[in-house]
């Protein structure tokens, strides 16, 4: 083997190992994040955390009960707003529309999807806060819902289109009308994918902070009903971590751990549902 060939082989082995290092580094970041959250926040997850309200500045022993409930309310609103639009819109695209309309709707959805979350926050502010002159849970739910729409729409459309022709034709040949076919055959066939899409959209907005900053704002106390500003986990994490108080930092870590576990669990569940196999034999 001559020198040049030896060099080339050395370069090859070296560079390929380096790519392995890159992959290893990238993946280990995930575990580092989880590990750090567990290390710094694990001990702070206690009964207080889940049941107490935030204590006044400087005092210890408070919790994030209102933020947890607040996040739940916001996510509920977001789902109620975003999922029907995304789902039914996708049904329209996959089953009824012509290609021109479909193009416009898809393009709009992609625009919405690509908009930075802070811009969505400005939008929600203009529509749901400014005219009413106050911040509210509804506005926050609207902001998050808007973010859920494009994710739900595009994925659902994809899964509906993936349902094999033969299934549709079989149902129609039996005399089922279009909407019956959709409701009783096509959607059930695609339900795994649709559920996954909804879960992933949910997990995505569960962690969003920016759209909430000037819609739901925040609240040190319980938020009553839907018209008051409300605390939420992500916003609490933000507020607490940039504050100067050790105790708040500690709680921010704990909240981060809770939030991340929630999001990761939903993500893993969603993928498990999808990979459990297609619900329609091919």
């Amino acid at each position, binding site marked *: 083997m001559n020198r040049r060939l030896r060099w080339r082989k050395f370069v090859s082995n070296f560079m390929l190992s380096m790519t392995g290092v890159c992959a290893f580094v990238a993946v280990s970041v995930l575990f580092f994040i989880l590990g750090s959250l567990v290390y710094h926040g694990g001990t702070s997850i206690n009964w207080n955390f889940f049941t107490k309200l935030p204590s006044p500045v400087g005092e210890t022993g408070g919790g994030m009960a209102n933020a947890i409930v607040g996040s739940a309310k916001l996510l509920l609103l977001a789902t109620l707003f975003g999922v029907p639009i995304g789902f039914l819109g996708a049904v329209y695209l996959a089953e009824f529309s012509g290609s021109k309309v479909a193009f416009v709707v898809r393009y709009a959805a992609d625009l919405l999807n*690509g908009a930075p979350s802070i811009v969505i926050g400005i939008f929600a502010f*203009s529509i749901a806060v400014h005219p009413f002159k106050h911040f509210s849970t509804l506005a926050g739910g609207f902001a998050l819902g808007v973010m859920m729409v494009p994710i739900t729409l595009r994925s659902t459309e994809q899964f509906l289109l993936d349902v094999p022709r033969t299934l549709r034709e079989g149902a129609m040949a039996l005399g089922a009308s279009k909407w019956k076919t959709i409701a009783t055959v096509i959607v059930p066939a695609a339900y795994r994918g649709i559920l996954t899409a909804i879960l992933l959209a949910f997990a995505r907005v569960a962690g969003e902070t920016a759209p909430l900053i000037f819609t739901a704002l925040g609240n040190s106390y319980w938020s009553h009903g839907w018209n008051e500003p409300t605390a939420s986990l992500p916003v609490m994490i933000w507020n607490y971590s940039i504050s100067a108080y050790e105790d708040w930092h500690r709680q921010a870590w704990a909240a981060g751990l809770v939030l991340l576990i929630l999001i990761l669990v939903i993500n893993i569940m969603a993928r498990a549902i999808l990979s459990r196999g297609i619900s329609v034999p091919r």
Partner: protein
Amino acid sequence: MSTASTTLPSAGPVAGSRSFFSRLREGDEIARMITFVFAASVVILTVLLVFELWNGSSLARHKFGLAFFVTRVWDPVFEQFGALPFIYGTVVTSVVALVLAVPLGIGAAIFLAELAPARVSDTLQFFIDLLAAVPSVIYGLLGLFIVVPLMREYVQPALKNTLGFLPLFQGPAYGLGFLTAGIVLAIMVIPYIISVSREVLLSVPRDQREAALALGSTRWESTWKVVVPFARTGIMGSIFLALARALGETMAVSMVIGNAPTISASLFSPGDSIASIIANQFSEATGELYTQSLIELGLVLFLLTFILNGLARILILATTQRGSDMGNA
């Protein structure tokens, strides 16, 4: 049956040959109309978004015009607003992020697409996808409590000692600043580069690599000189995508960038980005002009990400298309 069926049934699709009323009766027309309304509302939301951004910044746009983009001053008291420091901060942090993320991301993608056996590749990709799902505020949390001290105690002093003659690495080491924000951003956008590049590399036809190997290339040569160039458009697309993400990133950046609207050659300097100033000041903005200037910043951000995302999509589509065309040639 119904009066509508006096026309002969055509050989075309079922829906086309039935009249409006028979479809209405069977509920199809209602279903179509209902779902159309929902689909249309997506378009309405988007149009409304653009409208609100445009309209909500009209005062600022008319007052400052194009000078908005080159004015350094951001003074709420005297109502003087210029976007330059934020554009600068956004650009600098994004560039730092890409400089770090692109080699690492492409390297990892090469490993996943060319070297790792399918099962390993899929498992690692799964973890990368989970990484992409981590919310911005959690990156910010780690950035603030772990990366910033690290930067302040170790990395920045080390850089100063070795490369301190460059204006890039001068000035006091606070830990916060452009460099730190760029590093945190890099970690956030790597998953996007990896996922898309990996897909694009996997779509390169097998016989490209085989032809290179059959000519006596080493594995690295066949990957780097043939497979990667074949996929280069798609990889560019992944970089644009990552850039679009980096531009719009709000929370993590605002937590580590230092929040001082400065323009400085030093990467150690604190600064601010477009998204971060909006996040920090919007809810306290008093006065129409103040608020509208912030909205104008939002409009700028929206347009930038819109262009980048569009370009990214075109590039990625072009490569995967070319791969499948070659395979069918």
